[in-house]
């Protein structure tokens, strides 16, 4: 029946864009999300009023990620097609090889405790360099917490921007990565060029 009463995707896309703008000016938009293409596949970006709060890989399942953001931050989530421009630009520059660190406003709402400590340390590993999980544990003052460092990297809510891909196993093998090992290899190759 509804096939007889068409509404086009472009009409709806336009209305959704307008809604995001109006919701933001009404102070009702607590999380803006946007998906972008990248050399490591589509990325979902999410930002609060304070800054970028989440970068997610497609293999995590964007619906799952959205639901977890709704549970942990706010269900007032909208796609903002023109939003998050700074994050998109800095990521583009990074993937083009002309940016070696990010200076975006970032919201660490999804990190706590020792994981937050590790994640705060990660940007101090220079572009193109790597450390082992063990070395990171030493640097953050808890040399026995190697496994916990692994968990902190595996649960990093801001991969790429917070460079957990620069942490490897002691034997030089890759270890794990939320975006998959191919993605980790792609990022390390990019940084070694």
């Amino acid at each position: 029946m509804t096939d007889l009463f068409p509404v086009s995707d472009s009409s709806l896309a336009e209305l959704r864009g307008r809604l995001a703008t109006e919701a933001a000016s009404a102070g009702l938009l607590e999380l803006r999300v946007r998906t972008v293409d990248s050399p490591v596949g589509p990325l979902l970006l999410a930002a609060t009023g304070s800054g970028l709060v989440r970068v997610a890989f497609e293999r995590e399942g964007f619906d799952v990620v959205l639901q977890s953001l709704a549970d942990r931050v706010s269900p007032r989530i909208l796609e903002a097609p023109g939003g998050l421009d700074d994050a998109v630009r800095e990521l583009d520059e990074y993937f083009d090889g002309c940016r070696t660190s990010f200076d975006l406003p970032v919201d660490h709402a999804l990190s706590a405790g020792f994981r937050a400590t590790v994640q705060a340390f990660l940007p101090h590993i220079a572009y193109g360099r790597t450390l082992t999980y063990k070395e990171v544990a030493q640097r953050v003052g808890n040399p026995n917490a190697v496994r916990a460092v692994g968990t902190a990297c595996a649960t990093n809510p801001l991969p790429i921007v917070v460079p957990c891909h620069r942490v490897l196993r002691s034997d030089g093998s890759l270890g794990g990565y939320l975006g998959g090992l191919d993605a980790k290899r792609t990022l390390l190759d990019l940084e070694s060029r």
Partner: protein
Amino acid sequence: MKQPFQIAVERHGATVLRVCRATLGAGPDADDAWSETFLAALRAWPDLDEDTNVEAWLVTVAYRKAVDLARARARRAVPLDPLPEAPTTDDGDAFFWWDAVAALPERQRLAVACHYLGGLPHAETAELIGGSPAAVRRAAADGIAALRRRFDSIEGILP
């Protein structure tokens, strides 16, 4: 409600637009009603019960927003003439059909909007637009029959 609001917009955006267009005609007023519906929904969203039927709730909000807009439009003394003849847009929407809906008598149009396009049961439609469920059922059926007749009569001349 803990579901991401974006998912409700994706899932029900088209239904809400159909209800707005059937009530107000396809055009800027329907677009405004759509926006106001989702803004109001976003405001209420975190306090909404988890077991709410989101689509039915959005359709009732949309209907009320559309009626508010129609009243405001009447106050501004904008003539409620039939919409201009089959405006065509380049975005692929077949506005012909929205014209056909707009040409229905008001009760039929509202019953079609809420029941056929919005998916509300006759009883809930009756609560919204007034009248008995039986009368609403008849109005919706008559409206759809009129649209079918119009469709049949123009089918031969469609490209």
